[in-house]
């Protein structure tokens, strides 16, 4: 128990969390501090490339694990299934309509890659390693949740734009998925040798870039919270804090069934627990324009993301270590 607390505390006073907190505080205080959009996008490209490449290089190094295919399928199932759990919970404890509830549900089936990245950095600090292919699992979990949400809407009689080919293409080939999978393949092809050539770029400064990126995330999340004060009811807020551990529990069960390492189990929990705030919102604006963006964005970025970053990740590490025995 004190192990969890220590881990949580160490996590809370790490430079990356404090950078996030600084951003949030600056936004809430209405400071004009801001990171240019292009720079924020540049950093996210850096993080995706780096995390993908390192995952691929690690797969090249350790060889393919028999569990790879199973874990990919588990990821697909979690992403497709969790929206139903989220939807049921939302319809029970909040007053959201079908459309808004389905839109929120789509976000919680999908994943937040920055939460994933932060978790790998906590794992590293805790001396745990994870299966390299977990980044591929992250990639496959981005999209299926959207399909489930649209199916939910159709069945419940809400109106959604028809799910045309253009939208499918946009979702499946969205920039982050392509970059993550592409970098993973490059890492897998060039292996340890390739990694060494670019390690001074993608490994050494990684934590520092993550700090500045989280500073910006804090700014964005803080502004969102500030502007939407009052828009979120208590039930909705509670959902944003309850759904992550519920998702994580499903992730843990899958990890145990698959026999993942403690590190791998943590990451699967993190993926299940986290909520999308890039790919899914963009898809929702096209497919479900009637859903209110300030609800799903504030929940996912303003409530669930900070929760996972500060308390969630250490909790999942502790639970995974205790249960799997890292």
């Amino acid at each position, binding site marked *: 128990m004190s192990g969890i607390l220590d881990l949580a505390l160490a996590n809370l006073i790490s430079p990356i969390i404090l950078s996030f907190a600084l951003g949030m505080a600056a936004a809430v205080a209405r400071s004009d501090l801001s990171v240019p*959009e292009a720079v924020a996008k540049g950093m996210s490209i850096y993080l995706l490339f780096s995390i993908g490449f390192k995952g691929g290089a690690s797969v090249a190094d350790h060889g393919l694990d028999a569990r790879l295919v199973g874990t990919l399928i588990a990821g697909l199932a979690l992403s497709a299934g969790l929206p139903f759990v989220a939807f049921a919970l939302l319809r029970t404890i909040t007053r959201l309509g079908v459309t808004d509830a389905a839109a929120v549900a789509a976000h919680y089936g999908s994943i937040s890659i920055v939460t994933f990245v932060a978790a790998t950095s906590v794992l590293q600090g805790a001396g745990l390693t994870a299966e390299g292919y977990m980044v591929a699992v992250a990639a496959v979990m981005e999209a299926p949740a959207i399909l489930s949400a649209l199916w939910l809407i159709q069945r419940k009689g809400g109106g959604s734009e028809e799910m045309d080919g253009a939208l499918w293409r946009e979702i499946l080939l969205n920039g982050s998925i392509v970059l993550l999978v592409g970098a993973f393949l490059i890492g897998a092809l060039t292996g340890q040798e390739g990694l060494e050539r670019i390690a001074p770029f993608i490994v050494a400064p990684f934590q520092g870039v993550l700090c500045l990126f989280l500073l910006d995330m804090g700014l964005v999340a803080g502004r969102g919270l500030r502007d939407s004060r009052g828009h979120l009811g208590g039930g909705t807020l509670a959902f944003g804090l309850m759904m992550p551990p519920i998702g994580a529990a499903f992730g843990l069960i899958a990890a145990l069934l698959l026999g993942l390492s403690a590190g791998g189990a943590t990451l699967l929990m993190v993926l299940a627990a986290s909520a999308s705030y890039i790919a899914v919102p963009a*898809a929702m604006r096209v497919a479900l324009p*009637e859903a209110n963006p300030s609800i799903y964005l504030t929940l996912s970025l303003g409530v669930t993301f900070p929760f996972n970053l500060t308390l969630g990740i250490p909790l999942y590490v502790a639970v995974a270590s205790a249960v799997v025995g890292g």
Partner: protein
Amino acid sequence: MQTHDAKRVEIIIEAPMERRLSGALMRAGVTGFTILPVLGGSGRSGQWSREGQVGRAGGMVCVTCIVRPERLDTLLDAAFSVVERHIGVVSITDCQVLRAERF
């Protein structure tokens, strides 16, 4: 200098819809338009700014088309089919153009 009557249509629309809008314009035979970036704005759905935007998904762009007056209705129909269910603003101004053969 010789000028010719034309219509200038300005459509402010969510960035994720931009490809659909340009597609619809092209299909309607409107092959000339210009897209300007938008920094921020305010409307019935609240205030937003590019840098302060939650998730940066929902930025907007401003699409300007200049067309001959007789093509205005085709253009508006095409544009409306895309913006119909979405937030956004469509405005039309009378204008004059040089080099009318280009439109």
